[in-house]
């Protein structure tokens, strides 16, 4: 047994801050697993999703929720979805693979991304400074997911709640990502 132990570090060290009208928090236990749909395997994967998660295969831009409400499946592409759920370990891909077996191709994405949850009555006014897409509840209700670009960073956006959003961006630029969102909140308060 090696004498050395490895400890996990979140990209933003578990950042958490409250502002006037908005709060910002790193989602450190956000597990993300990419599931690619094999060519000709849509039916099989749909069936497996239904059987093990009670969820349907999401269309692009849609989110499909598992029956127990614990896992969201984001429609990221014609043959690709992301499963996101709370899980602190780096073995998330194995968990999904165990559930869906060989009906899909699985890739761990948890550490590829940093998740920031922004919430509060002023969060939309802050986000309209950096997010190009229409976040009005009618245009972007719960159950929608979108890829967009903000401040030169690719970002995945989804509505968590009436007044909260989950933003997911590449982990290597987590610092710049946080700075962009923080600056937006500071600029409107």
């Amino acid at each position: 047994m090696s004498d050395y132990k490895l400890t996990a570090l979140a990209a933003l060290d578990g950042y958490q801050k409250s502002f006037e009208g908005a709060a910002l928090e790193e989602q450190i236990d956000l597990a993300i697993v990419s599931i690619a749909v094999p060519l000709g395997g849509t039916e099989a994967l749909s069936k497996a999703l239904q059987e093990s998660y009670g969820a349907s295969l999401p269309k692009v831009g849609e989110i499909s929720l598992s029956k127990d409400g614990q896992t969201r499946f984001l429609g990221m592409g014609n043959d690709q979805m992301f499963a996101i759920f709370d899980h602190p370990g780096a073995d998330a891909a194995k968990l999904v693979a165990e559930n869906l077996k060989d009906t899909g191709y699985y890739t761990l994405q948890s550490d590829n991304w940093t998740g920031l949850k922004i919430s509060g009555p002023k969060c939309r006014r802050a986000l309209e400074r950096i997010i190009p897409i229409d976040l009005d509840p009618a245009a972007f209700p719960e159950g929608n997911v979108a890829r967009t670009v903000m401040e030169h960073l690719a970002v995945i956006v989804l509505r968590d709640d009436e007044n909260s959003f989950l933003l997911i961006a590449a982990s290597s630029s987590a610092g710049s990502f946080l700075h962009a969102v923080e600056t937006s909140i500071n600029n409107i308060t």
Partner: protein
Amino acid sequence: MTQTNRIAGGLVERSKTVNFSFNGKSFQGHPGDTLASALLANGQRLMGRSFKYHRPRGVLSAGSEEPNALVQLRTGAHQEPNTRATVAELFDGLEATTQNHRGSLETDYMEVTDLFSRFLSAGFYYKTFMWPKSFWEKIYEPIIRHSAGLGRISFEADPDIYDKGFLHCDLLVVGSGPAGLAAALAAGRSGARVIMADEDFLLGGRLNAESLEVDGMLGSQWAAKACAELATMDNVRLMPRTTIYGAYDHGVYGALERVTDHLPSSNGKPRQILWRVYSKRAILCAGATERPIAFGNNDRPGVMLAGAVRSYANRWAVSPGKTVAVFTNNDDGWRTASDLSRQGVTISAVIDTRDGQPRAQIPGATVAMGGRLMDTSGRKGIHTIKLVDGRTISADCLAVSGGWNPNIHLTGHQRGRPAWREDIAAFVPGADLPPGMAVAGAANGALTLAAALKEGRAASDQALADLGMTPKGGEEAKAEDEAAGITAFWHVGESRARAWLDLQNDVTAKDVKLAHRESYRSVEHLKRYTTLGMATDQGKTANMLALAIMAECTGKSIPETGTTIFRPPYTPIPMGALAGRSRGKDFRPYRLTPSHKWAEEQGAVFVTTGMWLRAQWFPLPGETHWRESVDREVIGTRKSVGICDVTTLGKIDIQGRDAAEFLNKIYVNGFAKLAIGKVRYGLMLREDGMAMDDGTTARLGENHFVMTTTTANAGPVFRHMEFCRQCLWPELDVHLISITDGWAQLAVAGPNARKLLQKIIDPDHDISNEAFPFMACGELTVCGGITVRLFRISFSGELAFEISVPARYGDSLTRALMAAGEEFDVVAYGTEALGVMRIEKGHAAGNELTGQTTAANLGMGRMVSKKKDCIGNTLSERPALNTEDGLRLVGFRPVNRTQDLTSGAHFIARGKEAVMDNDEGWMSSVTFSPELGHSIGLGFIKSGQERLGEVVRAVDLVHGKDIEVEIVSAHFVDPEGERLRV
């Protein structure tokens, strides 16, 4: 003696006083004033000096079209030149100074240039300053540059911050006058998402400047009521102080919101916001801008646009003069006389170019129907006006109206051309509007009040119907149409003194005629030759007159002459607003490696590689020169063991039944038969046969590969492969996703690399040479069960591994390996040492994969398999790329070992002239080799592989170096590759 020109009424807050300074002198005004209205209230007519001739100038207008009253607003780093006094909201403590004069505003020494005006007419610089030739660069140009330019910047960094943003709406209403308010009300009441923007700080447009009524109340009161109703609607966003400056594709409009310019300080918040407004429909209700009539000395302080004089009287409760005269060719000008007369201001004369009956009764005024003005007296402020018939009349303010130009600019931003309407003698929007845009009100040529209200409402109802919504606008506002007859009249030909057209660039009617004589007759040539319309006001009050005069000269009609093209921005935008947050450190994002924090603690020197920050070297205390550190890192690695963070190299996860076949088509060499648990070096070509990128690809499972790319090409290779799988071979089952950021990857290299790793790898895994030979790969665990991927590959040429762990453990793994490596004198090495070692081994990198070299050039010609097709295979066979004497990558060392090689040097044979014809190739990479003790290089030279031992010259003309080099093998260190396989 303050504010002697104030009259009753207006929309300023008389109960409060605002103190400001103008050229160091203190004045007072009220909240709601602009700098211009406050100066006029205080009797200050002289507000600036003109650009070329330094003629005394006063304010001409009451809006953003102002050409004369340009000031430097604020001081120090906040100073901004060319601020229109007509749009600068007055605030307590405002400081303004005039610009463009030497000496004081009252006594400008540069006014002497006006005496030389005969020699300084349009385009004079094309005909003068030619002799002697040498004087141009050293004397004439500097002098002209020094005296040119409007205003001065502070040369200090802009202390304000700016922001940007994105807004979405069903309907964007541009302008808040009668048409805009009618449209916004109707759409807002119908539940549509509406944004109404106006450049002014008080919404209402010309309703605030006129004495006309809507729904039985004063227009400005009706506007306030409408805005109050709109403010209660959640679906409506009111944006005063916001200029919609451009109409872009797909219904996207650019908007500049001035958030704090009306406040003494921005208090650390964004001063301005540059918005992109995504609209489904837009209605341009931008109103109209008045134009003057040109006649001799029509540029003097006191000569103003008639509608502006009305604005100052009705909105700002200021009479710009004590004795006001009106010069007009239309009915509208008469209302200035009647409005001011009603307020008790003396009207000395109304001169109408049209024949017929006076259009109104103006007590005490001399009325001259069919009259024309030809001159003014009073250089620093008029006191008399002179008619063509010889009469002179007293006036210290002359209100001129030549008609109104609909503000059609945004309709032309996508190359739509305007149409001419003879009845209002003006251009109106043409047929080709930007998709989704409608125009209503004065901007559409409906210059009267009732018509504007009606058009705004109708346009809004139509826009909503287009969007499938039901218009529920409620009762329409009621008003009457005022008289608006006009007979076109552009300039008084009898004038002897210069008649001014473009007041900002000092262009006269004579200049237009000169342009015509010199054959610059199209409006586009007229504009550039005379510079008319090219100043910060873009000729808003000048263009129409100029092209009318040009039309007279050419004998064409005005519509035949046409206009120049309108381009965004409508009014000037500060560079800071365009930059937004992209300044200094925030210019673009940073990408940090998982070991970054640890590297910072070590005092690493960082280098930017694209957006990444990579440790370049790790200086130890006492080291004073980078070579000391780099040499130490190389020696330490080759002697024992070194660790380098290589996370930045692209990592692409490839899965699918056809993944192997896919790789076979991407790479030049074979991958279909790569065994599970093995890694292979791969080279990929572009479609045209040029080398594109290289890397290693590992097979982790039957249908699972992980490809590495160079750092710089991670994105481009991914994009290329997505294109291939989606568009070229959609029948293959293959899927890609980037895992670059998600896995920390460290190179562990040197004779003790395996021993070091064995200290952290869990004992149930065997990484001996037998169990884990060169080019093996696999998933293992370390430190009690943490999953890692291990690859036995080497860029350094030493016994080496790359260990990859989920990025959350990257920092910890780095520290663990450095601690475990202490017993082996482990060194951390950066990109410099990485580069030294790969050059010593002769490995190609970015310098060699320039996109201009082929596999053959790289010495990898035989790697391009002819048993299978791959991207670029066919075109790589082009004869020109496969000549006998083609370039080959080889090594170089200086004949005199004490000399340093330079990359970029070109190879010339001894005894030959250093010219292009004798160029045999170039040096692509150089370094000092600690192992060999001298400089070495890699480079491309014709037939290089057959010329080992030959001596040529490496010529660097940029640095003046020319040294003899020997052609050698590119593999300087351990050429047999023995160290790799231990």
